[in-house]
């Protein structure tokens, strides 16, 4: 384990040009800042989610509201058959709403590792998104450049006894706080899946990647891609938006 770890570390240093990291800049602060830049105080977005599989592909249009690090609400707008299905995430709990049966179902803990709506995102990826800030310790691994800007590679190891899903995460954050890549490793520190951001452009009044792609290692033809159609950052969103009543309303 230690040996493997050392090799991994070594690899990290070889692949990224070894520039002594500015120790003044705190890795924790960078991750926090990057996360906040990504999520904003609150946001309203329309996203097309493309689930790609070797022999089929499916697209869903999702409207998403997020607030702070913890609360999110998603609605499926298209295809028409699924219109009005919603997911509410509050803290670490999740509920799903289906308009056809007009019921709200709370996702049980045992189901949190299952995929969300058949995508490559698991319920945990959504529910525990802020786990990265709370449960992990961050340290610099190296730096790189991207579009002429400096990029930090950060290794995030879980704190002892933290209730985490991943054994390690690797983050690639640009100096202007744009989140470029997030890699998920299991307990044996082997890469499981990667989320990559690209097509960085102006969105919601700031530079933001328009496409996010989540795919499992070694499966190039199985991925889930998020394409931001619109994104609006807000200073705040009302409390009553992130409630079960609001989830049931199936906002149009």
């Amino acid at each position: 384990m230690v040996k493997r770890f050392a090799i991994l570390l070594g690899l990290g240093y070889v692949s990224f040009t070894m520039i002594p990291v500015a120790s003044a800049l705190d890795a924790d602060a960078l991750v926090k800042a990057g996360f906040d830049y990504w999520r904003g105080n609150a946001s309203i977005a329309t996203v097309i989610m493309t689930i790609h599989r070797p022999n089929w592909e499916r697209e869903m249009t999702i409207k998403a509201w997020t607030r702070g690090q913890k609360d999110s609400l998603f609605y499926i707008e298209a295809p028409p058959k699924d219109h009005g299905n919603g997911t509410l995430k509050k803290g670490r709990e999740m509920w799903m709403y289906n308009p056809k049966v007009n019921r709200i179902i709370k996702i049980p803990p045992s189901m949190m590792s299952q995929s969300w709506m058949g995508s490559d995102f698991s319920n945990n990826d959504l529910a525990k998104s802020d786990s990265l800030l709370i449960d992990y310790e961050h340290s610099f691994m190296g730096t790189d450049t991207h579009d002429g800007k400096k990029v930090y590679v950060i290794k995030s190891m879980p704190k002892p006894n933290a209730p985490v899903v991943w054994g390690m995460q690797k983050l690639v954050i640009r100096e202007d706080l744009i989140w470029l890549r997030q890699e998920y490793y299991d307990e044996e520190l082997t890469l499981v899946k990667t989320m990559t951001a690209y097509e960085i452009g102006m969105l919601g009044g700031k530079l933001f990647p328009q496409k996010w792609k989540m795919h499992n290692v070694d499966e190039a033809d199985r991925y889930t891609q998020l394409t931001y159609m619109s994104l609006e950052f807000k200073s705040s969103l009302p409390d009553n938006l992130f409630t079960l009543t609001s989830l049931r309303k199936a906002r149009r």
Partner: protein
Amino acid sequence: MSIDVKMAWRNIWRNPRRTMLTICAIAFASLLLVFMLSFQFGSYETMINTSVKIHTGHLQIHAHEYLKKKSIRQVVSEPQEIAHLLQTIPKIEAYTFRGQAFSLISSKERTYGVAVTGIDPEREATVSRLKSSVREGEFLAESDKDQALVGKLLAKNLHITPGDEVTLLGQGRDGSIAATVVSVKGIYSSGIDEIDRASIHIPLKTFQEIYAMGNAIHEAVIIVESLSDVDAIKRSLNVKLQSQNPDNPLTAVDWEELMPGLRQSIEMDLVSGLIFYLLLIIVVAFSILNTFLMAIFERTKEFGVLMAIGTTPERLTKVLLIESMTMTSVGTSAGIIIGSLITIYFQSRGIDISGASDLLSQFGITGRIYPKLSWISAISGPLAVLIITFFAALYPALKIKKMRPVEAMRAV
């Protein structure tokens, strides 16, 4: 009767009590082997036949590699063609079609993840024991829609009883969201905890509607007349499925692939059984060895005299072997006959094992086990006894060759 045989015969009865004890030991070991082997084979067959009747069937037909991924998209799109095919194959007792999906099930209070199975109620009853394992409420009827059978442990966890409603939420074949409300019609207890804790059954038509399946199904489940037919039917099915659709053939898989755990537990049990039998045979072999060593020590003087008057050591060895083999053959034959009789008796009556049902219910065995007498179970054990005792008797018999007549005559 040659003189050798006569001598052997007299020697056998020189000490009748010892001889009888030896024969009894051999007979008892053989008897035990015959019965235990038959019992084991019988219990395996019972185990397999009961297990396949819980859910899996002897054989299933799926889309290629369905067993590996169990994806809802891997369907058998034309079940009617399969039905026609199955009707042409003899020795198939019954078959049914099922759909399988994974969903969330939710009562007012709780939510769990479960395997949802769409079943054809009438046909299902001929293939599996589902109908008879319904403990509360009723089995599904042909005309039922939006009704469900729920496993006992799941019902307990969800706090539901027949008549209550549960919500299902999952994903359809086309990737869309599948949701419905079904009312609980019955609660079953299959004896297998995993099934009772995490499965529900709904009518196939309802299933196809909810999960956007169209006409498609996921598995065709087949029960054949006898376990020994499984291999042949599987082979002929695979050939026919291949010719039906050469590009992307459906595949038939048997119970061993469907329940690898069952096969493994049978193998493990067989190995531990074999170790026990081996120990039994070794114990018998030592008792034989002891008898014959005694016979030689006792008769050293006699052998010396016989050799002094011109009997060759080979001849004495032969006499000794005739003695030992006569005893062993009598013993093993008696063992085979008595063992077979006992086995046949229990084969028709069965052995009540309801006392051990907790342990065995995890293998799907409830009630009675019927031993199964076959040529293998009747002959192989006693044959092993025969061979091993032969070698046990050979050692003392060969010792005679080393004897010197003069010394032997002086022995006490």
